């Protein structure tokens, strides 16, 4: 694996929770199978587009009757899985508690540290872009819990196909912070070796990676069948956003994964905005409802609740590992920063909306919960912040040391096998550059 500043690269949160599988069997295993007519088992979706969204710029109703829904505990709406509310109060959940039964105070504290560190990396990267060290940066501010909660549920041998904002996922896969930034400096096409990190390079074409995850999942199935393995396969996990759900590739990925029962988890971070376009422009129905039409389970989770995200992701992973096929997870969250450092969100959204989501901060609620449990105090918080600052300092020192590749790199790796014509083009360009050297001029 790539080096990391965090010696505790992998929390062992990937295997835990699978003990819940026996409980599933006892319950008839309904959640572990793709049952088209029970796609969202007890998460009936009311006729509101996004319950958590404060901005009234969408239709209040799509005109369809709400499905009957089981009442959930205090602090829940009828749909969204939430274990830790915005104030840090832990709410019991009959369906999902068992998926995080092993997450004790210490484990939750480690998740909290994760959240603080990736937020600090993100802040530092934005600053580095402003100072000219990076060409561009797409901040993840606000989406830390969605990414950490899901990524920490993965096993080392799972494989991730992500979009371009999943810095926290890559961090959890063991990618060193400076490697996260190299691509945004414009130095390389991929900051890490995908086979080592078990994560494909970030994908810029919206939604294209979802199909690639399905193909990887099909390969997992074929390998398992050839090797006579059953019941505990790897899983391909793909991350995409609300905007991507409008792409044909994502719909095709849903179809392929569903009809082939591929071991795939579709993790949609609904961060409410695709640059300047609100999610209401992408879908008339809650995104999680897409799952039903494709015949796979779907679950909507409070994407700012790291514990709930961990729980629903573990459930989906378990389903995929045990032959239950794909799951769509809609993590409802919010992109509090700009789309990228080149964006100006003041042109399309209000500060009131941002304040609404700041009150649902993914880090603060874990801190509040841990303080209530006596696990976190000022000293511990200061220590966590110090270690995050150290990561940022190392990142800052490291990124300025990343040298520009030599020009020959643009010709390397275009083809795997000899390509005499391209080699000739490269040589002609080298002669051209040599001409400048001979006259003492700068070719550039």
């Amino acid at each position, binding site marked *: 694996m790539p080096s990391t500043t965090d010696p505790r690269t992998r929390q062992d949160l990937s295997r835990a929770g699978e003990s819940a599988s026996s409980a599933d069997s006892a319950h008839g295993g309904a959640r572990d199978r793709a049952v088209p007519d029970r796609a969202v088992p007890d998460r009936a979706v009311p006729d509101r587009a996004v319950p958590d969204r404060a901005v009234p710029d969408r239709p209040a109703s799509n005109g369809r009757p709400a499905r009957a829904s089981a009442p959930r505990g205090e602090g829940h709406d009828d749909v969204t899985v939430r274990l830790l509310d915005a104030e840090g109060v832990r709410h019991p959940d009959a369906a999902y508690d068992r998926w995080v039964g092993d997450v004790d105070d210490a484990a939750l504290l480690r998740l909290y540290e994760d959240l603080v560190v990736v937020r600090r990396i993100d802040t530092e990267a934005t600053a580095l872009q402003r100072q000219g060290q990076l060409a561009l940066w797409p901040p993840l501010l606000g989406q830390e819990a969605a990414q950490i909660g899901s990524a920490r549920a993965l096993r080392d041998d799972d494989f991730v196909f992500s979009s371009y904002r999943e810095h926290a996922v890559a961090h959890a896969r063991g990618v060193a912070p400076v490697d996260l930034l190299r691509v945004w400096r414009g130095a*390389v*096409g991929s900051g890490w070796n995908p086979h080592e990190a078990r994560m494909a390079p970030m994908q810029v*074409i919206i939604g294209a990676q979802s199909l690639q995850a399905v193909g990887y999942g099909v390969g997992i199935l*074929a390998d398992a069948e*050839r090797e006579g393995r059953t019941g505990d396969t790897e899983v*391909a996990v793909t991350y995409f956003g609300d905007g991507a759900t409008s792409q044909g*590739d994502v719909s095709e990925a849903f179809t392929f994964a569903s009809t082939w029962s591929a071991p795939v988890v579709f993790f949609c971070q609904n961060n409410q905005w695709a640059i300047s376009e609100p999610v209401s422009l992408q879908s008339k129905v809650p995104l999680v409802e897409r799952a039903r039409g494709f015949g796979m389970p779907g679950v909507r989770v409070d994407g700012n609740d790291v514990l709930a995200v961990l729980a629903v992701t573990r459930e989906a992973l378990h389903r995929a590992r045990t032959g239950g096929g794909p799951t769509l997870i809609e993590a409802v969250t919010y992109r509090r920063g700009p789309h990228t450092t080149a964006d100006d969100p003041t042109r399309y959204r209000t500060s009131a909306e941002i304040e609404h989501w700041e009150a649902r901060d993914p880090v603060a609620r874990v801190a509040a919960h841990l303080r209530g449990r006596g696990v976190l105090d000022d000293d511990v918080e200061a220590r966590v912040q110090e270690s995050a600052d150290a990561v940022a300092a190392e990142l800052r020192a490291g990124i300025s040391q990343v040298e520009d590749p030599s020009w020959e790199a643009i010709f390397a*790796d275009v*083809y795997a096998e000899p390509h*005499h014509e391209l080699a000739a083009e490269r040589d002609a360009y080298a002669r051209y550059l040599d001409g400048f050297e001979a006259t003492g001029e700068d070719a550039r």
Partner: protein
Amino acid sequence: MTAEQMTLARGLNAGLRQALTDDEKVVLLGEDIGALGGVFRVTDGLQREFGPRRVVDTPLAESGILGTAVGLAYRGYRPVVEIQFDGFVYVAFDQIVSQVAKMRARTGGAVSMPLTIRIPVAGGIGAAEHHSESPEAYFVHTAGLRVVSVSNPQDAATVLRQAIASDDPVVFFEPKRLYHVKGPVELEDLGAARPMGAAHVVRPGRDVTVATWGSHVSTAIDAAEAMADDGASVEVIDLRSLSPWDADTVVASVRRTGRLVVVQEGPRQAGVGAEICATVTERCFEHLQAPPVRVTGHDIPYPPAKLEGHHVPDLDRVCFGIDQALGRVPLDVPTARPEEVAA
């Protein structure tokens, strides 16, 4: 080992069977390639022989086929994708040009994309709209891809094996007109076969070079025979590979003959023929005795079947092109404002 007579489609089938037998990581993906054996029967019997995990019927979505093939390649597989008809490949364009073609460079060589993308190509068979396209130029223009087009059953078998064995992605064009044309195929000793990227002088000649590929190799051979009766010695080159293309073989030929005709079915503008003419002009300028001549499809959408004879180069148009190169008839290059040129 004696050669066996078989159609180009059976040659492809034999090549696929060998690849599936030799390498368990070879998987076939496509629409109707299983029980049906593909609409042209190229995969006939393969699913029965190798099972539905190796010969996979996909949902009807070409981008989905290519995208899943990318994921299979990540997993260490060597996918062979069938696009049912040339005109259906465009919806997979992003996965091919942005994903398949660039993945190796994007990852600094860490991730290879050993895909073979089989595409039935070109017209002349009286087909419906979107079933007769010649889209090779799009892919030739894309770095990271290799592009080949076969013209006979032997190449169908051997070049397909070479394409599947290549660690680079290969767009593999199969001229529909030739699927049922028979020829000798030697299935042993493929290692001794001509390299995938090498052109082949299929008929030597002294007076003019005709460079082409795919179904128009046979058109060019027919034209060469007709011109022989007319006292002209025509050399015919089957390019076989369009990216990279074997410029050395063409240049060597034109330096001898001094004249070049390129035959392509696709539209004239920015076609592969234009690239060949430009390169030959750069490298053979002092040897040329006449401007290079392009015999091509028109710059039009592929016409309805009853009119395709006016679009697809045929024997007469190739002979006319050769006559122009030989100076036997005036060069007639399409020119928008001939009076201005004259002035």
